[in-house]
Each structure stands twice: as C-alpha cells, then as structure tokens.
C-alpha cells in the first residue's frame, strides 16, 4: 500500500483528505498537525473569542473520524525536515515517516512586522485555537487591548475582545480599513460603523515600538504619540508557510507553486490550501481552498481530470454586525465605470465596477442582501446592457433582492462546503428536514463561514413540509446568552459568583429565572468550589424546605432506598406531634412528608429528627426508590435495596439541572418503576440494565437503555457517569427525559459509558470533587449561613 503523508491538519488539508477518501484509495494516510487539536473550523475562531461558541463546537472532524477512516493522526508534531531521496519526513519530536506521496497543507502564519518590543509578553497573534484561548484568558472588562492591523483578522479579533468587555483600539497602517477588499470610501463607512460600536480606530498610524518592561504596557507610533495597552494583538497579515516546500526542493514563489491539477514541480509532492500559489494567486478564503482539495483528491488518487482554474476573489462577512461584501477587482482602473450608492445616515455604501456592460467588481458595506445577485453576474459574466440604468436596484417587478427560485439547481449555495441548491432540496425532501440545524447535520451546508445561512433558511422555508425556526435558547433577557455559552464563559472567565456574571455579561440585576440557573451553573462548573450567594437561590434552597401555598414549609427527611426503622418512625411521629404538623403524608417516592412547618421551627425540627435532608425541595438528587429484592422477595434476582441505598449515598446532597428521581429494582417485574425514573437500575439474572431518561409525570416516557453490565459496582458507575454528564451538559430546568431526547442516547453512551477511560475517569473525578465539597444542607441548623437565615426578626423597640 502506498504511503501518503499529509503535513497540516487544518481545514484545507483535512477537507482534501475527506475528498481523497471518497475515492476509496489504496493509501495508508498519516496526518501531521502541529496544533494539539483535531481539525476545526478556523473561520469560527472569532466566534469562540466572542464567546458565542465554545472550542468543541467548532470541531470539524473529531478523533473518531480519523479512527473510523484508519488515518494515523499525529498531533502536536511539527514536520521540520523532508528528505526527498529517502522519501522521509522528520518531526520536531525526532519521529520519522516514509512516504510515497507527500501532501503539503501547511497553511499560513501570522506575519509579524519588525516592531521593536514585539517579543514582549502580552503580545499575541490570532491564528489558531491556542492564540484564541490565550486571548480569552487575558481579555476582560477594563483591559486595554490594542489590535495592530485593520484587516479582516484584526477586526474580528477586535470584535471578540470588545464582547469580552475590553477597551479596544484598532491601529491601521493605511488610511482605510480592510484595504484589500474595500476602497477608501467603503473603508470609511466601515470605520464609522465600528466606531459607533465603541471601538477606537486609528488609521494612518505606523507602530514604532511596543513599550513596557518585559510585559507590554503601551504602543508608540512613528509620529511620537503613545497609548497605553495591557495586551496587543498583531494582525498585520498572513504569509504562506512555504519552508517545507523549499526543503522538498519544489518551486516556491510567494506560495508553493502548483498547476491546475494542484501538482508541484515534483511529481511526488502535492500542495493545497493557503500555502499554495496558483497562477500567481494565493487564496486565503475557504471556498477556493476546498475547491482545490476536490481537484487534488482526483489528481492524487489517479483520477486526474478535474482542474482548478482559479476563483474570483470574494468575501462576504459580518464584522461587528456590519455586513461587508467584496468581490472581483475592486480597484478603479481606466476604462472601468463606477456606479455608486451612498446613504451616510444609514451607513450603507454600494459600489459596482462595470466594464463593457459586464460587472468586474463589487463592494457592499452596511447592506449585503443583494450580494448573491452581483456574485452571479460576476461569475456568469452577465451582459447588463438592458439593466445599465438600474444596476443597484432590484428588477422593477417582484424581484425582492433575490429569489431562490431563480437559481439553477447546480448553483452552489454553501461555497465553503460545496453544497448545491439541488443537493439541499434533495436532502430536505428525502430526509424530511424542517430546521436549519437538521439541514446543517444532513448536508453540512452553512457550517463553514455561515454567510449562506440566510439562503439555506429561505430554501427550507420554501421547500420543507413543516419549516421551523431554530429556537435561540437564551437563558433570559438579563443575560442574553445560551446556557452552553454561559458555561463556557463562566469557565474561561473564571467567574465564581452569580453577581459577577450578571455584572459583566448581564444587566447587573438578574431575576427569578436567571439567578437560580446561574447559581446552579457556578456550582457545577467549579464542582462546588464556587462563591455561594443565597440571595440568588429560590427560597427552598435558602431554608432547605419546600414552601407551601400558605407560606409554611414541608419537611422530608432522607430515607435511603425508602428503607426506615421503627426508631426513625417513632422520632418522626414525635416531631409531628411536637410541632403540630398539619399533615403526615407518605409520598410516591417512598418517603414521609411533614407538612405545615413554620420557617423558624425548621432548624429545631431537623435537630429533633436527627435525619439528613431528603432534598425534596430542590433541583437535586431526590431519592432512590427500591423494591425489596433478593433479601426478601421470592422473585428477586438482584439485591436492589443494598444497591439502591448505595446509589443514594453516592449521589445525595448534589445539585442537578432539574430534580433527579431514581429507582432500583431486583427483577424485571419493576415494582419500584425504575423504567420511568431519571436513572433506573433494573436487575436481571446475572446482570443489571442501567436505564436513563424515564418519566412518569406530565408526560410518560420509558427510559432508554444506557448499558447492560454484570456487577452492581459497574451499574453504579454507569449511573454516576450519566449523572455527572447530565449535570454538566443539560440546561437548567431540563429534565433527563428532555435531555436524552435532545442529545440522543447514542451520543450519551459514546460520551459516558463508552467514552475513553480517561474521559470516564475525568467525569467521575469531577463528580467526586463535587461530592467531597457537598454536605447535608440541614446541618445549617447549627451553622446558619447568616444569623437570621431562619429567623423572624422582632423589632428592638415595641410600639407604644
């Protein structure tokens, strides 16, 4: 079998490998990546920086993909040498690999201008996930951030930093932002909009030195002016990584030179992506690079035929909420007519460049709704003679900017992933897709830069049987982020209290919806090592009892497994009489409920009972219901009481997104109804079935089988894995049955019981950490968190 070595684990390289696999080639593939992450969507780094996505969400190919396709993946290894005679690559760890074919997908690196002091700490680039993480770590409210470079990358970095609360200044060498894609007027419109959003922009500024002693403290410009800075991002452009091309002895210009088949000057060496130069052109945007990958896959697998003929440069993006579109040749040249539309008050700028009645270039700032029409004119070379007087306006009749029906089926809707209109429509029909997220999963359309999202939505609306908008599940108006997002923010920003989150990311106030949710979030993210703020908790969690309609409370002591003793029952009876309990109720959960207790009596009641809290008032571990099992039952095949009591012991006192009710039964007759519990253990002869996500409330749902195991210990461990996974991933107030539906049991299995050993260990150790820091809430009877926690305050002076 031939050996293919791929140097580079980025978007272009891996997309090319994906295409290669489609030919089922007889190749043994090894991929080297100098980053330690699996393949991810680099375009989305700005969303990670802005906290809109977490790092996992931008993964394109997880580790399983490499395994399933038998690709040897070497992460964190940088190839430093190539020996063409021996056909050998050498990594910076000394490892070597032989190849028959070599694919260079080395991408590009940040260009660092020669500025004095650029090596100081606090100076970053913004190219990869590590850069992004470092920036997230440093950026925060009040941090003075300076971004050197007002191009695409610099502005994206600025946006992310600003969302993180930093005080951002963008420095640009030339007089106009994004000077590659825009003309000076377009740049000025963009600048005005960005400044309105609170980012300072300094143009025509040449940076002379970064100041500070070891750590950057300021920036000095050629004109002598200085500004303060706590961190600096250098985004002055990118340069193709061509060093390995030179080592391989192939032709190198600005990039590694390739022909229309993506072959280099050496028949054994191929190249793809940002490191490549084709017809004098180096591409930095994703669509042409994926096109290159398709062509190269054919070439490399012996199916030579498709050619790469170059792309009209085009970029559509949203920078700080400002739509920008640029395509074709945007510089004004002799013989080119310019058509312009400006609306300074609305911040809209449009410019078309026309030659011989054909569109040659286009700039849109502030409104890019018509970009598809112009792109189509550019691509097809449409003769615009009849429309010459109304180029910037829609067709007089019905043309509402752009109509999906007008497009041919072959038209590529998602340029990043190469998905055509026809493919999307077929997928919507055959797979009965109704939401954008389903469409994304099924076709991968709109998972790249996201600029075709609107188009995909329109297609869905037009074609899908029951079109549904994806719900944006923001926690609430006080902190307008999704819960996933907030968890990531809490973690990366090391926020440990509810008020901090509200102050920095919200309205500083909070409400009855977000406060308890955030309270849970800081608890679970920090495994109990958070700053508890009782004012953010619902009353039940301040006084550890369930408030009733008359303002009194109910008390349910813990009775593990529903097993009690005569002594306990006697105590319960005494307490009920002593405090004139209005009702004693046996609950459906095999517990005893004492109703109608005054808040100020709670500590005394708990002390008299001498039993721990049953947590019947909170979003937490409620109980484990059991049947009598092998100890007494003549049908029992497993010891359900002992196992149930142990399960309750291991999980009690912990908090969960919503209440967690459990059941353990000693045989499939299921007397304690384990199959309609959040977590159930169902005893079989010689094994346990662990089931999750059951419900017997407003709706009834039979639990999903998580796993079947032989021993009680294994069953307990599986339950614990699911329990912690649910704690970490479910939204607050999401019961396990909704969670299981949303995630799907296959994914849950894969990430809990079938996860790699270290992942399972990590889940269990986080659970253990939480458990160690947890305690019986009713012990606060002796050590209240506040002197008046349970007290009705009496005035110091009486009314006279």
């Amino acid at each position: 079998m031939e050996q293919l070595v791929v140097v580079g684990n980025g978007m272009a390289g891996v997309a090319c490998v994906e295409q290669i696999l489609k030919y089922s080639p007889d190749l043994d593939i090894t991929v080297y990546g100098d980053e330690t992450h699996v393949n991810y969507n680099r375009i989305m780094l700005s969303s990670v920086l802005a906290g809109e996505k977490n790092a996992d969400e931008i993964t394109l190919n997880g580790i399983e993909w490499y395994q399933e396709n038998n690709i040897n993946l070497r992460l964190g290894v940088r190839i430093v040498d190539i020996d063409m005679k021996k056909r050998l690559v050498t990594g910076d760890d000394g490892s070597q690999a032989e190849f028959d074919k070599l694919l260079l997908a080395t991408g590009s690196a940040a260009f660092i201008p020669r500025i004095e002091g650029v090596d100081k700490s606090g100076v970053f680039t913004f190219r990869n996930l590590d850069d992004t993480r470092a920036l997230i770590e440093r950026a925060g409210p009040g941090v003075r951030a300076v971004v050197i470079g007002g191009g695409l990358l610099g502005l994206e970095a600025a946006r992310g930093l600003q969302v993180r609360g930093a005080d951002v200044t963008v420095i640009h060498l030339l007089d106009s932002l994004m000077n590659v894609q825009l003309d000076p007027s377009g740049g000025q419109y963009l600048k005005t909009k960005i400044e309105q959003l609170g980012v300072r922009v300094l143009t025509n500024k040449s940076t002379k030195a970064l100041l500070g002693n070891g750590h950057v403290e300021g920036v000095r410009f050629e004109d002598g002016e200085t500004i303060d800075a706590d961190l600096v991002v250098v985004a002055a452009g990118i340069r193709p990584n061509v060093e390995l091309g030179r080592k391989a002895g192939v032709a190198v210009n600005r990039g590694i030179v390739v022909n229309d088949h993506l072959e280099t000057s050496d028949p054994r060496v191929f190249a793809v992506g940002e490191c490549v130069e084709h017809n004098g052109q180096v591409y930095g945007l994703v669509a042409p690079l994926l096109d290159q990958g398709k062509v190269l896959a054919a070439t490399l697998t012996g199916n030579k035929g498709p050619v790469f003929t170059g792309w009209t440069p085009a970029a559509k993006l949203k920078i700080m909420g400002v739509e920008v579109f640029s395509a074709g040749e945007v510089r004004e040249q002799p013989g080119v007519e310019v058509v312009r539309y400006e609306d300074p008050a609305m911040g809209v700028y449009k410019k078309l460049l026309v030659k011989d009645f054909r569109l040659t270039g286009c700039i849109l700032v502030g409104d890019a709704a018509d970009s598809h029409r112009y792109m189509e004119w550019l691509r097809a070379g449409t003769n615009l003679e009849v429309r010459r007087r109304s180029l910037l306006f829609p067709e007089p009749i019905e043309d509402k900017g752009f109509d999906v029906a007008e497009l041919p089926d072959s038209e590529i809707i998602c340029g990043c992933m190469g998905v055509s209109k026809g493919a999307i429509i077929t997928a919507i029909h055959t797979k009965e897709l109704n939401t954008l997220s389903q469409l994304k999963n099924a076709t991968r359309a709109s998972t790249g830069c996201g600029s075709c999202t609107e188009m995909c939505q329109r297609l869905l609306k037009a074609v899908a049987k029951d079109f549904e908008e994806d719900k944006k599940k923001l926690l609430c108006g006080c902190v307008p982020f999704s819960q996933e997002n907030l968890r990531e923010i809490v973690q990366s920003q090391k926020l440990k209290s509810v008020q901090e989150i509200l102050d920095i990311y919200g309205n500083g106030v909070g409400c009855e919806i977000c406060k308890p949710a955030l309270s849970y979030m800081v608890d679970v993210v920090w495994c109990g090592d958070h700053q508890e703020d009782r004012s953010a908790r619902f009353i039940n969690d301040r006084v550890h009892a369930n408030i009733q309609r008359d303002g009194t409370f109910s008390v349910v002591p813990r009775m593990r497994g529903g097993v009690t003793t005569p002594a306990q029952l006697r105590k319960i009876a005494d307490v009920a009489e002593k405090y004139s309990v209005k009702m004693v109720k046996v609950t459906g959960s095999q517990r005893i409920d004492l109703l109608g207790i005054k808040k100020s009596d709670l500590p005394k009641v708990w002390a008299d009972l001498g039993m721990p809290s049953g947590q019947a008032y909170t979003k937490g571990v409620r109980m484990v219901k059991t049947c009598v099992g092998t100890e007494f039952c003549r049908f029992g095949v497993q010891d359900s009481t002992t196992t149930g009591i142990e399960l309750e012991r291991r999980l009690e006192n912990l908090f969960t997104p919503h209440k967690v009710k459990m059941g353990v039964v000693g045989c499939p007759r299921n007397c304690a109804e384990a199959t309609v519990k959040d977590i159930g253990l169902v005893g079989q002869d010689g094994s346990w079935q662990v089931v999750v996500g059951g419900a017997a409330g407003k709706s009834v749902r039979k639990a999903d089988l998580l796993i079947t195991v032989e021993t009680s210990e294994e069953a307990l461990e599986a339950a614990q894995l699911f329990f912690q996974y649910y704690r970490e991933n479910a939204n607050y107030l999401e019961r396990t049955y909704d969670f299981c539906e949303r995630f799907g049991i296959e994914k849950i299995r894969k990430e809990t019981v079938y996860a790699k050993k270290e992942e399972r260990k990590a889940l269990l150790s986080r659970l253990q950490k939480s458990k160690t820091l947890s305690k019986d809430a009713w012990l606060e009877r002796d050590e209240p968190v506040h002197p008046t926690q349970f007290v009705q305050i009496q005035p110091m002076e009486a009314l006279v």
Partner: protein
Amino acid sequence: MKWIQISKADNFPLREGRCVTIGGDDVAVFNLGDRFLAVDNACPHRGGPLCDGIVSGETVICPLHNYKISLETGAVLKPEMPVRVITYPTRVENGVLMIAVPVEKEMVA
C-alpha cells in the same frame, strides 16, 4: 408617622428579604445594598410571603406564583394588577434599621 428601631442593619443580608412583625403586621424588609426597602409581607395575588422572594433590582418576585412587585411603589408589575402593596419609609441610624409606620398603626398596637 413614627420611626421605630427595628434591628441591626447587619441582620438583613444583601439582596435578601426578612420578615419583621411590627404591631401584629408582617413587614418584608429588603437590603438592596445602597438602601433598604420595606413593604407589607403579603402578595396581593394569594398572600405569598414576599420576604421569601428573589430580588430583581428594585422588585421582588413572589415565591408562590412569580408575581412581580415593585419595592419602591408597591405596584404589581407582572402581571399588572390595579392594587398596591403598602410601602414603608426606611432609614439607617447608627447601624440600626428604622422603619416609619403610620400613626393609626401605633394606636392599634
């Protein structure tokens, strides 16, 4: 109006409510950090104990059915109801919270 010494200000934790019985009436007192606000301790909806609600800015959310009450004006903000909860002026003197109660109330006591 008569000002009555209630309790050390420290006895009212930040952003929480506490119930104080003044002359037979229950008053909910809230510590908003920069000031204290006091209202009758009964939600106009079903009489829920407002002192046990979650504080949201200058409002409190009744723990029983999430009615939202303004602590400044006593108005029921969500859902709107044409009734008000009685409010009481407060001040802190030498670290002690004082509440002003109407004279009729004094008479009753």
